[in-house]
């Protein structure tokens, strides 16, 4: 069965979620991954959106994080004060999903500017809730298509800190969250060893050469590289028929 890179990334991310975990969901692929996990192995996954919807149960694909479909039939809707103070800073979020225009060797993310802050070549949207999710969520999962440009050795601007300049730095700064746990790209899945992004699995048909050609530093590679399992027929059916029938993201 053929599938797109996006579909594989969604399936791979979904499998990283354990049942009962409380996840801070973003729009797009993270939303698909969370909802896929709920329908597969994690029916008790709790979905929280920074807009204030807790235990959302959307009956259409949400286009924005503030979609009314996330409110209707959710378990709770609260203020953004509550979301950021009591849920996120309160240590109630197990998993935060982040994306980024740039991610570097230590899992730092940039969604602020390409180039110089005061005279940017591209002005990006900024942090939103990403900075605090990176600092406070127990772990962070990143989904991002891979290229030399978007995976530089050092990001132009640290919007959302990963492991900063290496192991131990988060602890020195007293950051409550555990930092990035995995990066899922169109080529493979990475974990973090000593705070450094480390290739752990290759997607079917992808090679280490391809990985090296699309990353901005001499990337660390685990001793044992697994094959990322391909999405199953059931996973693809759910993604295509139930979650994103208009194929907006896949």
């Amino acid at each position, binding site marked *: 069965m053929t599938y797109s890179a996006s579909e594989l990334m969604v399936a791979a991310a979904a499998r990283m979620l354990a049942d009962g975990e409380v996840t801070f969901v973003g729009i797009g692929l993270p939303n698909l991954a969370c909802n896929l996990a709920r329908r597969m192995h994690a029916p008790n996954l709790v979905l929280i959106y920074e807009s204030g919807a807790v235990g959302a149960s959307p009956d259409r694909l949400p286009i924005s994080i503030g979609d009314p479909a996330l409110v209707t039939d959710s378990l709770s809707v609260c203020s953004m004060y509550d979301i950021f103070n009591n849920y996120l800073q309160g240590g109630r979020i197990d998993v935060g999903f982040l994306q980024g225009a740039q991610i570097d060797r230590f899992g730092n993310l940039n969604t602020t500017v390409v180039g110089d802050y005061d005279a940017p070549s591209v002005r990006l949207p*900024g942090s939103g809730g990403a900075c605090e999710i990176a600092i406070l969520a127990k772990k962070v999962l990143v989904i991002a298509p891979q290229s030399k440009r978007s995976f530089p050795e050092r990001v132009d601007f640290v919007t959302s800190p990963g492991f900063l300049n290496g192991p131990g730095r988060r602890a020195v700064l007293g950051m409550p969250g555990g930092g990035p746990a995995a990066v899922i790209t169109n080529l493979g899945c990475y974990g973090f060893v000593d705070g450094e992004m480390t290739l752990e699995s290759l997607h079917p048909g992808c090679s280490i050469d391809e990985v090296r050609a699309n990353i901005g530093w001499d990337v660390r590679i685990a001793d044992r590289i697994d094959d990322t399992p391909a999405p199953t027929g059931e996973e693809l059916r759910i993604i295509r028929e139930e979650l994103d029938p208009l194929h907006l993201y896949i």
Partner: protein
Amino acid sequence: MSMADAIGRYVHDGDTIVIEGFTHLISFAAAHEIIRQKRRDLVACRLTPDLVYDQLIGAGCVRKLVFSWAGNPGAGPLYALRRAIEERVPHAIEIEEYSHFGMVARLTAGASKLPFFPLRDYAGSDLPLVNPRIRQIECPFTGERLAAVPALNPDTAIVHVQRADRDGNAQIWGLLGVQKEAAFAARNVIIVAEEIVDEAVIRSDPNRTLIPGFIVHAVVHEPFGCHPSYAQGFYDRDNEFYVAWREISKDRARFEAYLDEWVYGVADRSDYAAKMLDRWRDLTAADRPCEPVNYGY
């Protein structure tokens, strides 16, 4: 009060304003009136500038933007904002940038007249390097260092709500964003209501009241006043327009043409709504009433 009177009285050149609403309940009606009245040099604060501030910025109303996420949700960048930052068109604007938590904290402090708010944030981020108003504070009990942001107390907050009585006692359901904090933080409060209801409706469910009338300065009745944003229980978000905005805002001429037709070319929101009547009908909400509760004793 009419929107023209409310803006005329409570939004002046140079004022610091907040039009809040996180995706939900964004008062485009107020923003369009500000553009029509050609306000200048505003300090425009909002977590997500969204199309609403992209329009204000492109129309030349804004001197400074204070924000935490500047994009067109689900549909790309805000081009009028980018033109202002990258090309100084129609003129340069200053920016002051936080994260969402930082903006929430600033309004929380503002609402309760604390001069600052403490939060566990910004460690390791470059944001404090480009914003000297993100500082640190030491806990007097544990010695831990936390981040601190200053209170935000706008001159005027504009909050769209689903229902309010004539005195401005205002009820919101669905996403609540930071509207309560924005209203309490502001010197002047304009409530824009989808529906003006009898005081008895408000009193039948006092827990639903987010903003009490006695802190409100103007109450404007403006049905469909959020479009293309939405009002839960009234009409859906116009996602197609959000996508279309990408192409409109990208091109300065199309941006101007949009303003000419939909802002300068209409007298007020009811004129806009009449022109948009079919769309309004298409977006009208389905019926999903809540289970009532009993307030008796």
